[in-house]
């Protein structure tokens, strides 16, 4: 959905036999896409009646302001994540400076910090009553104060937690480019800056846009972080209609408008890119090919990376650790192991299933270059921009619809009526798949695109059997993208709150659930232990996979 679509036709007879045989592929992909789009259909069905009074009230009192706020936030986050993500990716992928190897991994770590945790940590630290301002006032006098709950602070916090999406995908793209295109540009008379802006950046554009789209959709979907700042976005109106006016229908209508905006945005991006296609050789550069920074430049690069890493990771983690030591450790009990276990198992199962689903959709679209394939894929991945609770309810309602059908059957057979899906593990996993398919699809599709038809054709001409093509071309070339996707989904599921809350089976509490229990009562300190645990558990896959992708 996000990255460049494949322009070349991919004739079926050139494919490995397992792909060709998969007439199955098509039906599976359609079923999958339907399943994932069902919650969106629920939203569309909400338009049967319109509560004019609430719409009028929202329009008169706030809709304009909320749209303005949302636009400002999106612009701010765009600038923030692009500046941070692209520059850091460029530095760590193509240059060498003290600490570079370490920052390779370190700069990815903020991905493990949930936005809502980052938000309350930062506000607790930097707002009026926080330790920073208290110390400042003790030095400079009682009149020193600033608000850390304004637009700037929201944009800062969101950028700090979301830049890793851009960093991760852009870094992969820069690494894959190798030095050759840049050297060619240099020979044609481009300076280093022109080379970057005219060659490296455009070549990495699909990856950067994919990362940016994830970041922006997550910004639109966010409610936890912005509500810490009481920063009203379009999502606020959705929740006002639902929690305030108890009108889920109007909330669903507002949410479907939000989706329309996202679809229009994605469409415009595609139009803007036009017919440009970017193929890469897929060769990784050797580390000797890096630009060696020296002296002041090296220092600047190290300081910049170190600064971002400190603010985005060290500071929040240190504050959480301080709270834990200061007393939040009392929250520890034997059930914590259960929380960690549930979190880990849900996240790993959901990550694998979601990435396989994304791969399936990607292959389907590649083999069937039809409008329907494109539309299905687009719809299947747009749910990422929906506020979590709204999507969660949509998913719950669609599973509930299945349960209702089964209930009729149970009644007809004289069996006791019992829900099969809602409140079961399966439904929860499928809910995660629905929610995070977009996060998995970006990296998977990017790596699918790298397998140019000519590569498999060449292999076939050289006499490679389909099994060998699969083993020596498909799997190795898909692996980095799939690992990235698994990591993204794993971490996202760990941080996920609304769907987990609504659909978890009895007793299946996760770390995020515990964070919710505390923060919704205003107990930020007590949320430190589960918050820190999420970060700690999230670090493992982040480090493993970044190491792997650095090879």
């Amino acid at each position, binding site marked *: 959905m996000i990255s460049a679509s494949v322009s070349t036709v991919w004739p079926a007879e050139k494919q490995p036999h397992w792909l060709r045989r998969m007439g199955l592929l098509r039906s599976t992909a359609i079923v999958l896409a339907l399943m994932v789009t069902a919650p969106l259909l629920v939203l569309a069905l909400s338009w049967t009646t319109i509560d004019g009074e609430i719409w009028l*009230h929202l329009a008169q*009192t706030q809709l304009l302001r909320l749209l303005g706020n949302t636009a400002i936030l999106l612009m701010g986050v765009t600038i923030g994540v692009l500046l941070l993500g692209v520059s850091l990716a460029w530095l760590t992928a193509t240059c060498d400076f003290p600490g570079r190897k370490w920052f390779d991994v370190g700069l990815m770590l903020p991905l493990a910090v949930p936005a809502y945790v980052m938000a309350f940590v930062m506000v*607790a630290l930097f*707002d*009026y*009553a926080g330790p920073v*301002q*208290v110390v400042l006032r003790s030095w400079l006098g009682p009149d020193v*104060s600033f*608000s850390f*709950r304004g637009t700037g602070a929201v944009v800062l916090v969101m950028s700090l937690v979301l830049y890793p999406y851009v960093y991760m995908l852009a870094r992969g793209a820069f690494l894959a480019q190798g030095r050759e295109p840049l050297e060619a540009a240099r020979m044609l008379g481009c300076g280093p800056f022109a080379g970057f802006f005219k060659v490296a950046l455009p070549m990495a554009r699909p990856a950067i846009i994919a990362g940016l789209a994830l970041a922006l959709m997550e910004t639109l979907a966010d409610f936890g972080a912005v509500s*810490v*700042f*009481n920063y*009203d976005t379009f999502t*606020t109106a959705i*929740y*006002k209609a639902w*929690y*305030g*006016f*108890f009108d889920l229908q109007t909330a669903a209508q507002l949410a479907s408008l939000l989706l329309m905006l996202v679809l229009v945005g994605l469409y415009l991006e595609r139009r803007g890119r036009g017919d440009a296609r970017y193929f890469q050789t897929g060769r990784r550069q050797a580390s000797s090919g890096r630009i060696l920074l020296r002296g002041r430049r090296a220092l600047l690069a190290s300081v910049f990376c170190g600064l971002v890493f400190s603010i985005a990771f060290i500071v929040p983690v240190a504050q959480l650790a301080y709270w834990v030591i200061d007393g939040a450790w009392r929250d520890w009990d034997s059930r914590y192991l*259960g929380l960690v*276990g*549930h979190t*880990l*198992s849900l996240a*790993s*199962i959901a990550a694998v299933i979601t990435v396989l689903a994304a791969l399936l959709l990607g292959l389907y679209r590649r083999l069937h270059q039809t409008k329907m394939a494109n539309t299905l894929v687009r719809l299947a991945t747009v749910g990422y921009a929906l506020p979590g609770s709204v999507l969660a*309810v949509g998913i*719950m*309602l669609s599973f*509930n619809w299945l349960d*209702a059908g089964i*209930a009729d059957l149970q009644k007809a057979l004289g069996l006791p*009526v*019992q*829900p099969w899906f*809602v409140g079961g*593990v399966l439904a929860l996993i499928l809910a995660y798949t629905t929610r995070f398919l977009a996060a998995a699809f970006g990296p998977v599709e990017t790596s699918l695109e790298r397998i140019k038809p000519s590569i498999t054709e060449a292999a076939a001409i050289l006499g490679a059997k389909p099994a060998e093509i699969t*083993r020596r071309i498909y*799997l*190795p070339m898909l*692996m980095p993208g799939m*690992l990235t996707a698994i990591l993204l989904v794993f971490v996202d599921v760990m941080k996920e709150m*609304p769907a987990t*809350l*609504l659909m978890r089976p*009895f*007793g*299946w*509490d996760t770390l995020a*659930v515990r964070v919710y*229990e505390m923060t*919704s*009562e*205003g*107990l*930020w300190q007590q949320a430190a232990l589960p918050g820190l645990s999420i970060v700690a558990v999230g670090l493992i896959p982040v480090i493993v996979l970044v190491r792997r992708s650095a*090879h």
Partner: protein
Amino acid sequence: MLSCLRHLIIVLPALLILGCSDGSEDKSSVAEAKPDKDEIVVYSSRKEHLIKPLFDRFTAETGIKVSYITDGEGPLMARLEAEGERTPADMLITVDAGNLWQAAQKGLFRVTDSEVLEQKVPEQFQDSQNRWFGLSLRARTIVYATDRVKPEQLSTYEALADDEWDGRLCLRTSKKVYNQSLVATLIERHGEAATQEIVKGWVDNLATDVFPNDTALMEAIAAGQCDVGIVNTYYFGRLQADNPDIKLALFWPNQDTTGVHVNISGAGITQHAKHPQLAQQLLEWLAQGEAQALFAGLNMEYPVDPAIEQDPLVKSWGTFKADDLNVDVAGRRQAEAIKLMDRAGYR
């Protein structure tokens, strides 16, 4: 690359098996996943640490298991509504009368006729048709900085709109139902036009942006960002328990007029409960004796039954005259209150 592939081939199934075995090895979690025949199922927007100790005790005393999930009231009510007759839930526990009233409006509760509940829960704190019952009380009252405000300067909620408090007031966001309920009672007393003036006055007096929760608000008062605010009593209790020297105190407003605004947390038995008798047993158990004291005490709230002893810290705040309106006004006038606050610019 090949090592990468091998790694994945080994790791993926392992993860799957690990993940699955987590569910099947651990017998207890499977038992929890499918409630037994004689097990009460509760949907609760009251948080786990406030209900689990009670359920544990109930199970110890009666042998009846209780399983539960917690979430916000919006999602829980949406789930209950969608599940209809298939719902496993026997009881919905939620905070704020506004939410209970909405749940009753949506037909999620059944009528529960119980002598015990009639006797223990004052009429003001239960549904007139016996669909829901209050279990604990919280007062939403004024908190002030003891080093900058004298209690004589304070009088009523309405008076916080006076010029005297210009730049000295802190409020929590109007998105929180507690503020919606407070404004709903003001509308009931003063009518819409006068209430809007009061709320506008509050907004004009704000020292800073509204806060996301009561605790952050009180910390801002303690730090000197503002001098007075409106909070729920138990948030103050938690802060005071952590930090007994904090320079904040509660003030009971409107003692010569309408009384302090009180709200409830409460519960009702669901329309399609599978174990209505057991659920009623639990509800009655919660409304009396030690359980009632614990229900309120865990969260430093007031027991709904005035005969029950209060938590010592809660008791130390003194007695007050409470507003005697039926709490269902919070539900009836909630939408009106939200619209009014929106118009007044109270975010």
